[in-house]
């Protein structure tokens, strides 16, 4: 990230040809502090532009089709500029340009121009260029520095800046230095303010470079070499602007009539204008302004014709289809559905099919489509990592220089940049960044990965999970065949492609992502794009900066001392008394424990008293709190903390949103409010994390360790109070017992046997104990678990009751149900056992169930799809240090058939098969299809020992005495049946001879079905055979018709090879078993 030479964003505002200014990018120490708005733009020279024009003319027909899709025309009021423009902004960035002569008559040269993109409520697109906002930061003023010293200091700094930025021809680097009264947010201070210097620089990137100079130290006459602590020098420019103008992400902005000027048209937006930053009116998202503008959301998907056995690469493989759906925010059906195909494609009902002869035309048609439809939000599945970069790199390969003009700025090309996103919470991800100016990219894959923990993130399993729909999956080796077929096969592909474009839209709607993310942006005040591209901390920082600004506080740019600042003791967990509780267990929860603690004890950066200051200030003991971890914080009468204030506001706002939600009738309004209360809750909870994260903007271990120490104390306190008060001694029927306690909840067994009584006691306890805490810490009674299976710390299951009459659901925690590397059998077993134990209250039934499942496994009667384990292939075999089962298998499959073998990026499904003694686990993995086709025996012992045993024993140990002996070694494990592989060496020498269906005795040549011994039992044996056939036929019918349904066609063969689909292997197996069973049945035709 650092020390690289990068092209500066070239100003699109001066379309004069000639050398673009290049400035050395400064070395940057912190990734997070990096200004993110480098725009690589190159201008298109004149003749290229005319080429595009001609290109458009040639496609008049297409253009007229596209014209239908353009935005509604501007009304005369807009055209005459007689009305104010009110719009909801979605994206804010900035460019470097010549400063506006009319709006800013006093300045000249280059300046940062903020661009705000948005939509009016009529659906017009808006591009607002904001002028006059200057980048700045603070340093503390050395004592004794007067106005004269400052002007000298200014000169020195200017000189140093010029030295560091030799390539830049900016007339003045440091615009001005002002003396202001501020206070640092860090530590409790007795003076109300100090003198700070506000350094205003010419361009946003200079903040970093200037900070570097000041950090390293600067020689000042009279004072000598001095290095400065900088304040708020790591705030991104766009965020700085938003904070200072009170703009939050996704809110409505008004520019009054007469205050804006429209002259140039540099973007494709309908309304483009220039104005001063002071003229913007930012509306708080309330009432009328809490609504959503009718954004245009484009969902798209591309198909590429890969070569056999290889994942498509943009340098070789053509883009053959692009499917698009455009939906207006708030409507449930897309108003545009189309697909662009390479070569002729048969029509699809309700879809505009556009076929082209060359790939160039396909790509350009899509580019034109984007320009005409002008989407505000672009969504899709894995578009950021695959679809968008692929299109751009493909256009580069084909030398279509005019393709990547996808943003809203005319003549500005989109480029692909490799980025790494790293966050403690989400881990490090490599990805490609494609910046499409003015349009928000919302990749559903990234969002789902962020917000949900799932066992697989393929589009198929994600839509199965959220929409309960299976998706047809066409293997990429077939895609080329379909493309090379005829118009019909390409149509088939187009239908598939459309579905892939439709599912992200459905997911977006179903999971309310637009509402939730816009609300999150509004609550935290960051642009929507930050929510996806950045971690948690920016959200808290944004709120902190806003609050600090109100209070005249400034936030230091803390140098991160090393990677780890040391860790602190986390949350406490009371010892779990494992067992199966058949009496109701009341659960007492602390409502938003950590935020409450911070509020109750006024924990903040600005209330923390350093150990030295404790003595120095000599604070009276009644106005400080000493936390259990030994820190000292002042109480709110001396200094109200900022964090508690932010939290109070968030929680109050949440209360309000929830109340409004109850009142609201309109479903769209409800969606907004629900999104808001969720965002507020998440935000309140992330404040604690912000102070504790070691690699963050402003870590403060003193705060976070105090929070957890109070938390621990409270759990212990609660336990003690409950067990002291609810005793037979105090007149209660039973002695209460705390059986378990986690971070913010305590589980109590009051000893009563009905849910109702437990609820009453729970309420009483919650009220009693709450009274002993400082407000707003509150213990709430919410639920009763009955029955409750407590396995160990953080692992439990129980039925969840909030009303005395029926239970709400089955609640499980920490029990293997979603782990990726488990086979489906484990998940089913665990779920069914819990169901039997908790809901049916049938422990013998559960035991029987496990036994029969184990017996099925050993007797080779298990449905293979339950045994499939799936792992992602992230690197090729050589790159793995340790041999892994799925990697080895991928290698072996490549040798068998390179075309269908999994590639890097694919998920590899496998089963563990029986092999020679001593074979390593990784040698025993096999492709499930291969196993099915060749009757290869699976290894039941592996599944028993490595997959089933642990999770099952965990559940049964609290219930059964000899769980392991009973379940895993009982008589049901005695008989084992292993199928004979049809391809093994020895079988080639075997002579096949019919055996009796009844007793397996070898048959003499005359008999074909039964031996003479079994002749009398014909009827019963036939019944058995035919019953098997009958069962298989039923399964066959149900499975294959389901697949027809899923693919959406009855008259075409099912092609789907989705290995994520639970019935894929079953379907294959049913087909094969059916053929075998039919042969068996035919033997009866004597």
């Amino acid at each position: 990230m650092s020390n690289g030479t990068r092209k500066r964003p070239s100003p699109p505002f001066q379309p004069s040809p000639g050398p673009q200014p290049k400035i050395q990018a400064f070395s940057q120490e912190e990734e997070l502090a990096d200004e993110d708005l480098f725009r690589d733009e190159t201008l298109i020279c004149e003749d290229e532009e005319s080429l595009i024009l001609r290109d458009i003319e040639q496609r008049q027909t297409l253009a007229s089709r596209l014209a239908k899709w353009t935005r509604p025309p501007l009304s005369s009021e807009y055209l005459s500029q007689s009305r104010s423009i009110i719009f909801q902004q979605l994206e804010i960035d900035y460019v470097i340009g010549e400063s506006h002569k009319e709006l800013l008559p006093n300045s000249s040269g280059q300046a940062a121009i903020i661009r705000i993109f948005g939509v009016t409520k009529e659906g017009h697109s808006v591009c607002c260029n904001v002028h006059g906002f200057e980048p700045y930061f603070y340093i503390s003023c050395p004592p004794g520095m007067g106005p004269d010293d400052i002007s000298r200091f200014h000169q020195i700094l200017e000189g140093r800046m010029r030295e560091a930025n030799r390539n830049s021809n900016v007339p003045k680097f440091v615009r001005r230095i002002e003396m202001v009264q501020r206070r640092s947010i860090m530590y409790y201070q007795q003076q109300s303010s100090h003198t700070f210097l506000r350094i205003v620089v010419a361009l946003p990137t200079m903040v970093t470079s200037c900070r570097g100079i000041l950090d390293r130290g600067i020689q000042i006459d009279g004072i000598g070499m001095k290095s400065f602590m900088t304040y708020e020098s790591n705030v991104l420019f766009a965020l700085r602007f938003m904070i200072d103008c009170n703009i939050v992400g996704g809110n409505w902005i008004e520019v009054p009539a007469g205050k804006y000027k429209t002259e140039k048209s540099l973007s494709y937006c309908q309304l483009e204008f220039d104005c001063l930053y002071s003229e913007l009116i930012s509306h708080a998202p309330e009432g009328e302004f809490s609504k959503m503008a009718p954004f245009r959301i484009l969902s798209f998907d591309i198909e590429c014709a890969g070569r056999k056995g290889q994942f498509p690469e943009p340098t070789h493989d053509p883009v053959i289809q692009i499917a698009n759906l455009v939906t207006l925010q708030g409507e449930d059906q897309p108003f545009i559905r189309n697909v662009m195909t390479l070569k002729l494609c048969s029509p699809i009902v309700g879809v505009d099919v556009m076929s082209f002869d060359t790939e160039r035309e396909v790509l350009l048609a899509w580019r034109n489509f984007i320009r005409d439809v002008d989407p505000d939000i672009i969504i899709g599945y894995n578009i950021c990592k695959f679809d968008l970069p692929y299109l751009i790199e493909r256009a580069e390969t084909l030398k279509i220089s005019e393709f990547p003009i996808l943003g809203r700025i005319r003549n500005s090309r989109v480029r692909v940049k490799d980025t790494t996103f790293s966050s403690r919470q989400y881990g490090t991800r490599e990805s490609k960044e494609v910046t499409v100016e003015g349009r928000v990219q919302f990749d559903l894959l990234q969002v789902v990965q962020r917000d949900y923990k799932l066992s697989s993130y393929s589009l198929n399993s994600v839509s199965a999970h959220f929409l309960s729909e299976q998706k047809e999956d066409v293997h990429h080796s077939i895609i080329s065949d379909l493309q090379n077929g005829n118009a019909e096969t390409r149509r088939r592909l187009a239908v598939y492609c459309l579905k892939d474009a439709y599912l992200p839209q459905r997911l977006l709607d179903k999971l309310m992502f637009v509402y939730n993310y816009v609300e999150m942006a509004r609550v935290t005040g960051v642009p929507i794009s930050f929510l996806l591209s950045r971690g948690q901390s920016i959200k808290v920082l944004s709120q902190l900066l806003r609050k600090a600004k109100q209070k005249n506080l400034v936030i230091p740019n803390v140098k991160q001392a090393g990677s780890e600042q040391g860790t602190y003791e986390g949350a406490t967990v009371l010892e779990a008394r494992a067992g199966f509780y058949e009496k109701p267990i009341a659960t007492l929860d602390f409502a938003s424990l950590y935020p409450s603690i911070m509020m109750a004890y006024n924990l903040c950066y600005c209330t923390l008293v350093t150990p030295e200051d404790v003595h120095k200030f000599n604070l009276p003991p009644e106005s400080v709190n000493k936390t259990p971890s030994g820190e000292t914080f002042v109480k709110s009468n001396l200094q109200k903390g900022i964090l508690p204030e932010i939290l109070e506001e968030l929680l109050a706002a949440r209360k309000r949103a929830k109340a409004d939600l109850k009142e609201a009738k309109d479903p769209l309004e409800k969606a907004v409010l629900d999104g808001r209360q969720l965002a507020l809750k998440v935000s309140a909870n992330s404040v604690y994390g912000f102070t504790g994260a070691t690699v963050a903007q402003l870590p403060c271990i003193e705060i976070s360790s105090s929070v957890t120490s109070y938390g621990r104390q409270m759990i212990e306190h609660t336990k003690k109070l409950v067990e002291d008060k609810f005793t037979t001694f105090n007149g209660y029927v039973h002695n209460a017992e705390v059986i378990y306690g986690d971070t913010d909840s305590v589980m109590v067994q009051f000893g009563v046997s009905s849910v109702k009584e437990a609820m009453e006691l729970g309420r009483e306890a919650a009220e009693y104990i709450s009274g002993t805490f400082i407000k707003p810490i509150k213990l709430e009674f919410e639920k009763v678990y009955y029955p409750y299976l407590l396995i160990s710390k953080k692992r439990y299951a129980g039925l969840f009751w909030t009303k005395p009459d029926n239970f709400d659901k089955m609640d499980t925690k920490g029990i293997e149900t979603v782990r990726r590397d488990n086979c489906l059998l484990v998940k089913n077993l665990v779920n069914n056992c819990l169901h039997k134990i908790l809901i049916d209250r049938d422990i013998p039934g559960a035991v029987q169930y496990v036994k029969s499942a184990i017996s099925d496994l050993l007797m080779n009667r298990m449905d293979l799809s339950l045994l499939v384990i799936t792992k992602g292939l992230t690197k090729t075999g050589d790159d793995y240090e340790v041999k892994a089962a799925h990697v080895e298998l991928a290698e072996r499959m490549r040798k068998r058939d390179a075309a269908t073998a999994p590639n890097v990026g694919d998920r590899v499904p496998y089963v563990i098969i029986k092999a020679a003694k001593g074979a390593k686990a990784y040698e025993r993995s096999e492709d499930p299809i291969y196993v099915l086709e060749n009757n290869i025996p699976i290894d039941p012992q592996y599944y028993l020992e490595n997959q089933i045993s642990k999770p099952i024993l965990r559940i049964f140990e609290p219930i059964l005495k000899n769980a392991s002996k009973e379940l895993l070694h009982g008589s049901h494990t005695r008989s084992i049946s292993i199928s004979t592989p049809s391809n093994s060496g020895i079988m080639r020498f075997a002579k096949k001879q019919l055996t009796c269906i009844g007793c397996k005795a070898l048959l003499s040549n005359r008999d074909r079905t039964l031996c003479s011994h079994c002749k009398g039992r014909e009827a019963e044996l036939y019944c058995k055979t035919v019953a098997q056939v009958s069962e298989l036929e039923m399964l066959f019918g149900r499975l294959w018709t389901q697949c027809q349904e899923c693919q959406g066609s009855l008259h075409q063969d099912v092609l789907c090879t989705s290995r994520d689909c639970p019935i894929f292997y079953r379907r294959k197996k049913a087909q094969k078993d059916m053929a075998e069973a039919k042969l068996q049945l035919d033997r009866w035709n004597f």
Partner: protein
Amino acid sequence: METMEIDSEKNLVRQQCAYYSLDEAFGIQKETYRGQQYSQIYFARLHLMRTLLYSLVSNWKPHLPVCRVLALEQGKECIIVGTLYKHMKLKPCILDEYSKERSATPLVQPHNFMHADDHLVLEDESGRVKLGGNILSLLDVLQETEAGEFLVQDFLEAGLPPQIKLPLISTGDKYVVFVSGLSIGSDNCNPLQVQLLIDHITGHLGDEKEQSIASQIVHVVIAGNSIEIPCGLLNGQNLASKDLSRLSEPIKELDILLSQIAAGLPLDIMPGPGDPANFSLPQQPLHRCLFPGSSAYNTFRSCTNPHLFELDKISFLGTSGQNIDDLEKYSEAKDKLEFMERTLRWRHLAPTAPNTLGCYPYTDRDPFFIESCPHVYFVGNQDKFATRVVKGSEGQLVRLISIPKFSETGVAVTLNLRDLECHALSFGTQLSS
């Protein structure tokens, strides 16, 4: 074998009639599962129907163009022939087995899966389209609406197939007895009732008059579910030998009963959903080894389900009830006979196969297509006895019979071959004291 030997002056002689089996089309002897899917049977069906319907279109709406789903244009009227598919929200789905909320699935299977949100889709080889407007059948006049939905203005169904004229000559009353759902081995089964039925058929019951009627019974058809194997016996994987014998107990019993009938007159036995036969349609004849006693008679015929045969040139078509029961789950009609009538008009015996009704994946034909109109169309294992005559536009006359389950109602059905009149034959064992 002996007819009825009664010490009366007049010896009654059992009437005879000519029997001709047409079950060949439903046999699956040579067909095998080789990995074929269900698309081919749909294709074959569509092909048959299209040829048929195209010939009708010229008389129906000659001014309209006939086209494929893909060639539809907005605002233009046209005719499309295609397979109707009903999207149903409540239709059970095998994927539900894998859904997370196991407890959410209702324990009792609903009788009918209809829901207000269901909608129809018309599909041909080229594509599918959602239907709107006045809907119900196999051929539709459509006009494209804005939303890519197609407005059905009118529809044409294939109508009753052509019928061979009823033979005129008829010497007198001849009866065919239909019975279904004997359920030997179930708790409902009343052995005395079954024995009464058999005694009646074989003429061992009643006075001379009744015996003379019995002597006019020329044929017996058992339309499915003759045996009920105690549930759960076949699910278990390892059967103990005593279970095995319990399994074959009802079969032996049935064999004894059937041999009594077969000794007297011809008997057709069709497999039903509960019998030891394969599951998917067409169900293959019950294996002869199940009936060592009765299969010795040449009057005993084990048949397929559906079953197609002729008696004295009168053609009979019938099933053990799966086709009609399945229709009932996914659509509505005022009674079972109406469902039966619909299948005739659609010229398809099992319109819901293979989608919700299991059937063999044929590759080159659709045996359920009704080529010629039967004179008698019966369906077994229904709740109650009902009958009606349906008239076709070309003078076809079809007798519809819904045969009730004998074990529950004690009712069998007789049909007079002379005039195709139909009566219930009720056996009671309740002695009123």
